[in-house]
């Protein structure tokens, strides 16, 4: 079998020049390694962001003040208002909007966020506080260590009740069960009714901050104290995955009765995820593309070594032709050799890339990686293509050698 001979000859000559083969492969190894590493970091970020957004709860709609186009719609005039929030420079969302949305068609819960800064007497620092509706317990999945979340009674009566994070509990109460105890904000006593605990520090809250340092208060209490009406965002939970569309329509209808179109924006959680994934996808592809340039360099290395090999083995080519090899046999032999270099290099690079992607998070815990099957497949296919592309020219050169000249060469 002639093809078997081509394989054997390729393996023999690769092992015959072990160091040279390895150095030639190194270009491909580094290329595939970087492609896998970079795309797996990008993929890891994507997964992390997705899981964070999903950890906020499913089937959510967000209402923001002002007009924001997250995904530009096709065929829309480019002159349309893009950021009405800034144009209007006024936030018109109020807590009454939250109350107006509650219990309407397709909606199971409505909460809001009012961010505040309060003086924490016990520690003599300013601290961030978050005003929420009692529905926030349905909208966000809270991990409660002790106690319960704010209830309707406390919200309606604007009571000074607080749900605090584990870190806040440690600093205020030395980590003991502090349910029923009080701490002072702006000189007034607040009663602890719940303590949140999150194991992973990266489990970020709706504002992208650590849930363990949070202090949640009834939004009504905070608005009252700040003498404000406006809230910074409203979260609406649809009754089910199927009713997200209905809920969105309900929200728009009700909001349009209460506001002008450019005063608010409704964004589905899914749209947000899609937009984020689009951006991260482009980023990952870009990073992978840059890494792929090194693959190209590796391919040129293969071509270079194959040209040297053809020159060195001119006599061998002559002998093979005298024995009965035709041009195609010689072409295939050298092509297989080039493809072997690139494929073995590709596999080694893949192994290095996958183990690198596995090890990276243990060295840098902030970095998350995920090796995607698609990236592996594309990388290997690309390695193969590089081998064929850069192997064809030297192999053609070898096959076209005149056997007489080849036999004469020393």
């Amino acid at each position, binding site marked *: 079998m002639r093809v078997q001979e081509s394989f054997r000859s390729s393996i*023999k000559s690769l092992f015959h020049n072990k160091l040279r083969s390895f150095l030639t492969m190194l270009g491909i190894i580094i290329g595939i390694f970087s492609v896998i590493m970079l795309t797996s970091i990008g993929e890891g970020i994507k997964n992390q962001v997705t899981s964070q957004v999903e950890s906020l709860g499913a089937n959510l709609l967000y209402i923001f003040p002002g007009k924001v186009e997250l995904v530009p719609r096709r065929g829309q005039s480019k002159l349309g208002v893009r950021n009405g929030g800034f144009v209007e420079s006024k936030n018109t969302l109020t807590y009454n909007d939250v109350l107006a949305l509650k219990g309407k068609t397709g909606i199971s819960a409505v909460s809001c966020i009012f961010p505040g800064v309060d003086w924490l007497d016990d520690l003599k620092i300013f601290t961030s506080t978050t005003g929420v509706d009692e529905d926030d317990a349905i909208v966000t999945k809270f991990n409660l260590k002790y106690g319960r979340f704010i209830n309707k009674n406390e919200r309606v009566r604007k009571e000074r009740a607080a749900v605090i994070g584990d870190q806040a509990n440690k600093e205020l109460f030395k980590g003991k069960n502090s349910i029923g105890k009080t701490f002072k904000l702006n000189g007034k006593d607040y009663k602890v009714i719940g303590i949140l605990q999150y194991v992973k520090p990266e489990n970020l809250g709706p504002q992208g901050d650590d849930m363990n340092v949070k202090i949640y208060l009834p939004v009504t209490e905070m608005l009252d104290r700040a003498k404000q009406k406006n809230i910074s965002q409203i979260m609406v939970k649809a009754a089910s995955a199927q009713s997200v569309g209905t809920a969105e329509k309900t929200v728009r209808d009700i909001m349009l009765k209460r506001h002008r179109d450019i005063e608010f924006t409704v964004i589905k959680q899914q749209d947000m995820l899609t937009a984020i994934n689009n951006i991260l996808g482009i980023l990952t592809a870009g990073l992978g593309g840059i890494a792929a340039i090194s693959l190209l360099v590796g391919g040129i290395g293969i071509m270079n070594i194959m040209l040297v090999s053809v020159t060195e083995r001119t006599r061998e080519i002559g002998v093979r032709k005298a024995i009965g090899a035709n041009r195609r046999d010689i072409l295939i032999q050298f092509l297989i050799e080039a493809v072997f270099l690139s494929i073995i290099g590709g596999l080694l690079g893949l192994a290095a890339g996958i183990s690198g992607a596995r090890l990276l998070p243990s060295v840098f815990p902030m970095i998350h990686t995920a090796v995607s099957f698609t990236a592996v497949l594309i990388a290997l296919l690309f390695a193969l293509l590089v081998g064929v592309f850069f192997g064809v020219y030297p192999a053609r050169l070898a096959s076209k050698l005149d056997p007489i000249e080849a036999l004469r060469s020393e």
Partner: protein
Amino acid sequence: MGINIQSLYKSYINGDETTEVLKDVSFQVEDGQFLAIVGPSGSGKSTLMNIIGCLDRPTRGTYYLAGQDTGSLGDRRLAAIRNKHIGFVFQSFNLLPQYTALENVELAGLYSNIPPRTAREKAREALISLGLENRVKYMPNQLSGGQKQRVAIARAIVNSPSIILADEPTGSLDSKTGREVLDIFNGLNREGKTVIVVTHDPAIAQEANRIVNIKDGIVREA
């Protein structure tokens, strides 16, 4: 596989200078002949042998091998003829250094598309027939000159060709091993193979039952 060469010319163009290596060569070789082509170096004898061996093509004239005009054949057909019907033996052995003796011999079988196992068996038989049963796994650099040439002859005969072409086969050997190699050729000739030896040594030519002299590209029957 009768050889019939009709008014054959071969010239090389080197810049604007044309060198005529073979001029109006015509001769026939019948099956089973032991022919010596004798001439000084540069006389064109190797070129003639390469054309007979289908490694090279004439500039003009025709070369019939077994009645077929080789000028009309393409690369694949010529390669197949070299593989199945012609066995080459070179002065410098031309064994592949990265292959064992067995693998070198096997190569000819593999290029003829026979199953790898059969190719290996035939290669082993050829080596045994030349007294190399203890050298099967040796690399060429572990073999003596005579052994190398015997491996090369095994490679030439493994596909049972009807023509053996040898270019100064004893040129790199001492007289004793050279004698052994010539005896092998005599044996092959007795089996009915056509043997063509190119040499500048008249003593070797005496082995042949026909001698053709070549000088300045002109062939003359001795």
